[in-house]
């Protein structure tokens, strides 16, 4: 009897002690961590091209262009009290370009040939690592002498239980195109003929006409208050990636694009069969549908196959195919060299015709060879270096170097050399 009582008392005390523990705070496992710099990316690129079909001079003439592109991106990572990961990215891009054909915006060839573009960006993403979802917002700005752009986006992602991931993004760019016309096509300014003073005029090196009173006061100038025209672009981007097995993964992506506004460039000339000339005229709306598929496969222990195919169509009559293959060979787990080859072909837009081939009855017309039928090839080699302790034991964790040579059947060709540095 005593044993039974002791046993019952013991069980009762055990029962009581199971409720003696304090309730665990569900968030006690998470401590917020402030944003800290996680990664800095620097991308430098030098591009040089030449050809014979400049749209500035109506589809003939030099297409010499050089571009030095510099991009810096800083990423901060942190965690909030709920355990969500926050990523903040600030980017800044500065490009300097020179274009030989830009000199001929003026009929005399006296226009500026070089320019700069500056483009900052910001992006914030919040990720719930436990359930594999992300949500974020982004903002962009771009300024160059003849073009200004403000953009924004909203993006989200979700992982599936069997190694898949959905991504979606909607974005809008609200741009302004400054209507800088070829000098000979600038409408003459209206001069106030009621003024009693004698009016004189002169033409500047860039082709502007300036009207002066006898006292030297500028009455009118063809470059005053160059108007701008809007161009808006809306994009819905969707993609899905899936792990197939231990060596292969695939993805499919599309960007549904709708553009509206001034979609040409105001300094592109078009010459007609009767030798007259006008500025190119393109429709004020464009819908684009590209769909791309990637498949990557790790063959053996050292070879990777990176493949890509894209089908493209739009309502300007262009249909295009793109296919590329890159074969990284891993000399060590941290160093690989990748030869690559890209093939591209497109049909012509009905709005395109070569120099002097447009009929004066055409409603839309351009001699920009980007809208002609052609095939192009791009080939080169890249390297990827990422030792575990950084290059020479520094914060430089990854270095990519990449060179490519590009040719089009329109006789345009170019070379590009790029460096990408990642610091951690």
């Amino acid at each position, binding site marked *: 009897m005593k044993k039974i009582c002791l046993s019952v008392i013991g069980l009762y005390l055990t029962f009581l002690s199971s409720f003696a523990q304090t309730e665990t705070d569900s968030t006690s496992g998470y401590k917020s961590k402030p944003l800290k710099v996680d990664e800095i990316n620097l991308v430098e690129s030098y591009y040089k091209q030449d050809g014979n079909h400049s749209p500035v001079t109506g589809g003939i003439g030099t297409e010499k262009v050089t571009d030095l592109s510099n991009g810096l991106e800083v990423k901060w990572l942190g965690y909030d009290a709920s355990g969500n990961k926050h990523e903040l990215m600030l980017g800044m891009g500065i490009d300097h370009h020179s274009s030989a054909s830009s000199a001929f915006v003026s009929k005399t060839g006296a226009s500026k040939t070089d320019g700069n573009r500056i483009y900052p960006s910001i992006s914030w993403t919040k990720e719930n690592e436990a359930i594999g979802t992300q949500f974020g917002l982004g903002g962009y700005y771009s300024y160059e002498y003849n073009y200004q752009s403000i953009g924004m986006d909203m993006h989200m992602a979700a992982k599936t239980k069997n190694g898949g991931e959905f991504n979606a993004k909607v974005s809008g760019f609200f741009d302004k195109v400054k209507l800088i016309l070829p000098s000979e096509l600038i409408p003459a300014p209206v001069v106030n003929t009621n003024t009693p003073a004698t009016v004189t005029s002169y033409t500047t090196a860039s082709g502007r006409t300036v009207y002066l009173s006898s006292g030297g006061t500028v009455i009118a100038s063809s470059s005053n208050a160059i108007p701008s025209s809007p161009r808006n672009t809306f994009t819905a981007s969707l993609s899905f990636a899936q792990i197939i097995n*231990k060596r292969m993964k695939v993805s499919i992506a*599309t960007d549904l*694009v709708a553009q509206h506004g001034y979609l040409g460039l105001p300094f592109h000339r078009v010459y007609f069969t009767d030798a007259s000339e006008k500025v190119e005229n393109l429709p004020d709306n464009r819908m684009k549908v590209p769909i791309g598929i990637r498949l990557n496969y*790790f063959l053996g222990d050292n070879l990777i196959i990176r493949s890509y195919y894209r089908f493209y169509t739009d309502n300007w009559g262009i249909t295009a195919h793109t296919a590329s293959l890159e074969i990284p060979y*891993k000399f060590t787990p941290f160093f690989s060299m990748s030869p690559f080859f890209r093939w591209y072909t497109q049909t012509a837009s009905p709005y395109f015709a070569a120099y002097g081939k447009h009929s004066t009855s055409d409603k839309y017309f351009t001699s920009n060879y980007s809208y002609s039928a052609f095939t192009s090839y791009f080939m080169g080699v890249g390297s990827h270096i990422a030792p575990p302790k950084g290059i020479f034991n520094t914060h430089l964790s990854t270095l990519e170097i990449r060179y490519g040579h590009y040719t089009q059947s329109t006789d345009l060709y170019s070379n590009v050399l790029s460096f990408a540095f990642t610091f951690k």
Partner: protein
Amino acid sequence: MKSQPCFFLLAILFVASASSCIQVKEYQKNKLNDADMALSSRKAEKNELNFQSYREGASGANGGKTGGGCGCN
């Protein structure tokens, strides 16, 4: 359009591949997690994608420009 059968064939191939996927545990992902296996263009490709979108009629579906944002079409 002649190009449509080609595209649909590839889309079917993609769906067939995706539906035949197997569960891969985290410790088995050493090859999948290799930097050269990433399903995106490389950082050093950024300006290549830009000039291709400027000089060609097609753009998009590759992580690059789709339109807008600069004085190019």
